């Protein structure tokens, strides 16, 4: 079982890595490339905290071999912001208080980002379906769903939300 040199295209940059056949994409991202945004929680496809994009489609990186990720465009949560400029979706998560412990957040963001590509202002039902493969122990989902539905609002307080989500600050 020899290690193999491969090239992965991650967040529009090429990376040369040496991987074993049984290395998952998640392990290579975190352990070799220090892209520790993607989290391992269950490691068996259930929770969604490891979600990344392969060719714009959200997939589980814990169930994807690094070898199988060759030749496609991989995007991780690190690729959402432009330098220090957060994406609208990331800002919306902050504005709506959609982050508590934050462990599910990278996966939530990647599932939501993929949804927003095809549907910039999704309704609640569509959003819940798109996020249905991501588990959050903390928030109860309501704020996450709001954050995604209203991600198109570039304001720090969302005018679409009737209640003031940030009142606790």
């Amino acid at each position, binding site marked *: 079982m020899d290690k193999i040199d491969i090239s992965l295209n991650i967040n529009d940059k090429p990376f040369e890595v040496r991987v074993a056949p049984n290395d998952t994409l998640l392990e290579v991202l975190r352990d070799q490339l220090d892209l520790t945004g993607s989290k391992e929680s269950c490691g068996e496809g259930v929770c969604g905290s490891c979600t990344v994009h*392969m060719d714009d489609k*959200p997939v589980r990186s814990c169930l994807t071999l690094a070898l199988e990720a060759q030749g496609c465009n991989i995007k991780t949560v690190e690729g959402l912001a432009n330098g220090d400029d957060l994406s609208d979706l990331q800002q919306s998560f902050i504005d709506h208080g959609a982050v508590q412990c934050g462990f599910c957040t990278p996966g939530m963001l990647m599932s939501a980002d993929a949804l927003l590509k095809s549907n910039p202002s999704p309704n609640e039902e569509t959003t819940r379906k798109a996020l249905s493969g991501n588990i959050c122990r903390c928030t109860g989902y309501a704020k996450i769903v709001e954050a995604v539905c209203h991600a198109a609002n570039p304001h720090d307080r969302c005018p679409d939300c009737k209640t003031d989500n940030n009142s606790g600050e």
Partner: protein
Amino acid sequence: MRLPRFDYLGPDTLDEALDLLATHREEAKILAGGTDLLVRMKKGLLTPKFLISLKALNELSYIKKENDCIKIGARTSIADIIASDLIQKQARALSQACEKIGAVTIQHYRGTIGGNILQNNRCHHYNQSDFHRSGRQACHKDGGKICYARDASDRCNSTCQSDGATALMALGAKIVLASKGHERTVDLANFYTTDGIMPFAIESYELLKEIIVPAEGGSSAYQRLAYRSAIDYPIVCAGVLLKLSASQKNIIDDARIVVGAMSRSPLFLAREASSLKGKKLTDTEAFKKAADASMNSAAAFAVHNVGATLEYRCVMVSEMVFRALKSAAQDAKA
């Protein structure tokens, strides 16, 4: 969780893949989307020496209509099936079943229909970590001589929880199995063994190449019950097909009922379905009777190994079949 070690083989053509399978046989496993296989490998349930990846075999990814059939390549993704108008219109039960598989981000882009049919049977006592299983005697499926799910059982009663297979069997699908220099077509209803250790009648050197779904008219529907509407496997499901009489459009000429997640394979209930012959599409009494009969038959097979009490699952068989029949009838009238 680390995967055990293996060698990765990436054939470029189907012929190359079949050559590799013929050489390595039991030592090799096919890797399609990996959403079933890699989980089992991580749990130490199997440790193949070689994985033969279908990644480069685009020739196995297609949906096309030929004569009165829809042909689906085994490597076609669940997302492509959901997006197909053809399947939506002419094999609705399959479309409905695929929508329910796991969650968008787990299977829909990486999971395949071939892998869905061939995902291994499951059981609460078996689909556990190495550590969990090391604390007790091995069961039949794990190489031992006992079954935790049914006392004194001489065989494994693990449950087939494939949404796709249940819908496909209801639609009367056939599958094409290819091996080096040979191909055979089998009725999906005849593809299962009677032992959950190896639930499928497929040889180690064979590859599932194509699924053939008859599309000669008729109206189908799929219903399932799971703990959560996403991520979870079905604990009861049902697929049905209603064909109408050519002369009288509101009379059922032929019906198929298949109950899934209750046994080692989806259960094709021919006798229960035949009671619907000659009945009107609006005859919900007849639907109820057929649904109750399905429940009684399915109850004989089920064991308590996929969650929820057995009593509840059995009652829900009737409900799922009834709902599916009503939905198919409604679709036929429309």
